[in-house]
């Protein structure tokens, strides 16, 4: 047990710091820390920043060197994320591409597929969205009804995906579709890569309770993609899709924990200013929130060490989603109490639209976080059955 940097980690930390010192200036520094899951603030600037990061291989850190990555260890990824957050650099725009699709592609893709897609992700030229959920495939995710059939050298896709984050920003979608029409459940599915910009695809924004529309409905009407654009074997898509969810649980938490830490620091500052810290109940809740976000970090570090040591994720990893979504929701609720009556007022003129401030947005958006990427109830089933070995619910 040792939380000091090794000499290699320290050198890596120095390199990142120097790079950020030099590049995080001007318009990039100006939007520092802004952006996030429910926030498209400064999107174009953030895309430009992503290109800058990619040019120096800070995108795709963990990828093998032959595909342009740095083959960084988990510890180095932790270091990168720490320094990135400390520098208050802009929120990243490539979560679905770099964070979810790329590791799945590296695990299951052909050499040709990797060479086709990875560089575009690294250089911020192509963004991705995740086509999993459907109107009738929510918690029962394998109940996919979107179908694809081969027509010559192309797949023809019909159906609908929903809750597709940033589909309106993406050039590509990785989608789980039914390629065996006779199949049911998790069998007979395939994992396709589909270009968004085509006549057969319509993206409709879904206006959420936040008043914004980061989620979308995506309609496929004879949409097409090349026959080669299948990841893994045809019919084996469920396994590939689950691998993506594994990556979602893996290192993705890092930058998130740091973003949460920053949100809490901001709230504590607000509480100092408006006098809320004099209220003993608020003090208790702020401290509880602090404990929660620190433990999120400790859990994450234990998970990564376990992964390095044992090669597989341990029980501490499966609690991640359940833990952070619950924490963030409580944090949002606490923020309203810290702000008091001011929490109920939206900035700007009464007819200027529904423009939430950052804390109001967290209060609302966090309601989606205990639902998406496996609702908390589903997470508890997974923990109960796969980690604790409790019997399955009869189905």
């Amino acid at each position, binding site marked *: 047990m040792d939380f000091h940097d090794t000499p290699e980690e320290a050198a890596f930390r120095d390199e990142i710091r120097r790079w950020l010192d030099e590049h995080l200036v001007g318009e990039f520094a100006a939007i520092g820390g802004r952006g996030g899951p429910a926030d498209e603030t400064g999107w174009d600037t953030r895309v430009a920043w992503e290109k800058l990061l990619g040019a120096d291989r800070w995108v795709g850190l963990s990828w093998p060197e032959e595909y342009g990555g740095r083959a960084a260890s988990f510890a180095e990824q932790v270091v990168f994320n720490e320094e990135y957050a400390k520098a208050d650099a802009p929120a990243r725009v490539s979560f679905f591409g770099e964070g979810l699709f790329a590791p799945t592609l590296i695990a299951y893709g052909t050499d040709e597929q990797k060479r086709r897609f990875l560089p575009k992700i690294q250089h911020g030229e192509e963004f991705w969205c995740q086509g999993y959920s459907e109107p009738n495939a929510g918690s029962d995710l394998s109940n996919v009804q979107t179908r694809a059939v081969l027509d010559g050298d192309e797949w023809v896709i019909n159906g609908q995906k929903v809750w597709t984050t940033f589909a309106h920003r993406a050039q590509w979608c990785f989608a789980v579709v039914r390629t065996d029409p006779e199949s049911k459940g998790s069998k007979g599915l395939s994992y396709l890569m589909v270009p968004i910009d085509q006549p057969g695809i319509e993206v409709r924004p879904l206006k959420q309770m936040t008043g914004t529309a980061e989620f979308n409905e995506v309609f496929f009407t004879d949409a097409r993609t090349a026959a080669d654009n299948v990841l893994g074997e045809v019919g084996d898509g469920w396994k590939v899709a689950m691998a993506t969810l594994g990556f979602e649980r893996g290192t993705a938490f890092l930058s998130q924990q740091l973003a949460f830490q920053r949100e809490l620091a901001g709230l504590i500052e607000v509480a100092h200013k408006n006098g809320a810290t004099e209220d003993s109940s608020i003090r*208790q809740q702020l401290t509880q929130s602090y404990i929660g976000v620190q433990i999120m970090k400790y859990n994450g570090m234990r998970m990564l060490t376990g992964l390095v040591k044992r090669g597989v994720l341990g029980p501490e990893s499966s609690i991640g989603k359940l833990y952070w979504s619950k924490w963030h929701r409580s944090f949002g609720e606490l923020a309203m109490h810290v702000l008091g009556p001011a929490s109920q007022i939206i900035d700007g003129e009464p007819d200027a639209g529904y423009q939430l401030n950052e804390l109001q947005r967290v209060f609302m958006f966090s309601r989606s976080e205990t639902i998406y990427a496996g609702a908390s109830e589903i997470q508890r089933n997974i923990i109960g059955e796969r980690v604790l070995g*409790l019997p399955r619910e009869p189905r």
Partner: protein
Amino acid sequence: MNFAFSEEQDQLRDAVRKFMEAKSPSGEVRRHMETVEGYDENVWKQMAQELGLQSLHIPEAHGGQGFSFVELGIVLEEMGRALLCAPYFSTVGLAANAIMNAGSDAQQSELLPGIASGETIATLAFTEPDGKWDASGITMEATGSGDSVTLDGTKMFVIDGHTANVIVVAARQPGTGGEDGISFFTVAGDADGLTRTPLATMDQTRKQAQLEFAGVAAKPLGEPGAGWAALSKTLDQAAVCLSNEMVGGAQQCLDMSVEYAKVRVQFGRPIGSFQAIKHKCADMLLEVESAKSAAYYASWSAAEDNDELPVVASLAKAYCSDAYFHAAAETIQIHGGIGFTWEHDAHLYFKRAKSSEILLGDATYHRELLAQRIGI
């Protein structure tokens, strides 16, 4: 960055777990908890002689093995899991740390070897009848100076105070208040003028006593009047030790609950297949794993003796207290009627969880302390 135990540390855990399984099964816990002394002298000797548990983190120069709080935490976790009835937390977690923090080299040489060898049972007497865990709770005055000091007053809620042969006492210089003027002393368990009264405790697995001092001659430990820093650090270290102990108990509660949920059949199927029970167990796992992360990180910080210790000690104590009590309470609920009986072990953990939560300050107390420590 490496957040895992080493192979040697895993071996230590295995050895301690085997020892606890052999020496502290439920039957033994129940036998000792009903005695006034509350422990088995032979087991105490074996702990020292066979496993060297009392000497673990005492420096080699003073008869110890020079390991760190990480190893100590492992041992305490296994003891907590088995509800070991022994004056280990008081002797090693409280007294030895106080002596190491406050004592001169000569005083440490005099006091620590006895603890390391298992001959000395020791404790720290700092709380008084008002039950406060901070400096303001210390009102006992030490009169006289140099080597001729006498103590008068009452110490209360002293863990294993009736069986300890060395008692480390925190008292204050007349006319001082708050964190100023606090001094440490040592007093022999059989000192003239000391009346020790064992208290009947709700958690029978951890004994407490009332100690009345009437003109008791005491030996100074450390610098007179400057004891608060050492006491505060001792309490932080003890909070880390206790957090690890609580984690062991919480894990045992989870294990008992999951085991029972797999075998208890109602409505024709194991109750663990119902989401109502499954989700309780999942939440317990989340809290137990998180408590481990907090306790282990705090152990490392104590081992490093770094600036983070006060923050992570209170953080761990607050979180582990809540997690253990919640796990113990859910264990009763999941077991249903059987969990409410004297015969089942669930109540032993429930009671230990509550006594540990209260000991050294409950979660609310530590959250406020933490708020101050992080500048809220």
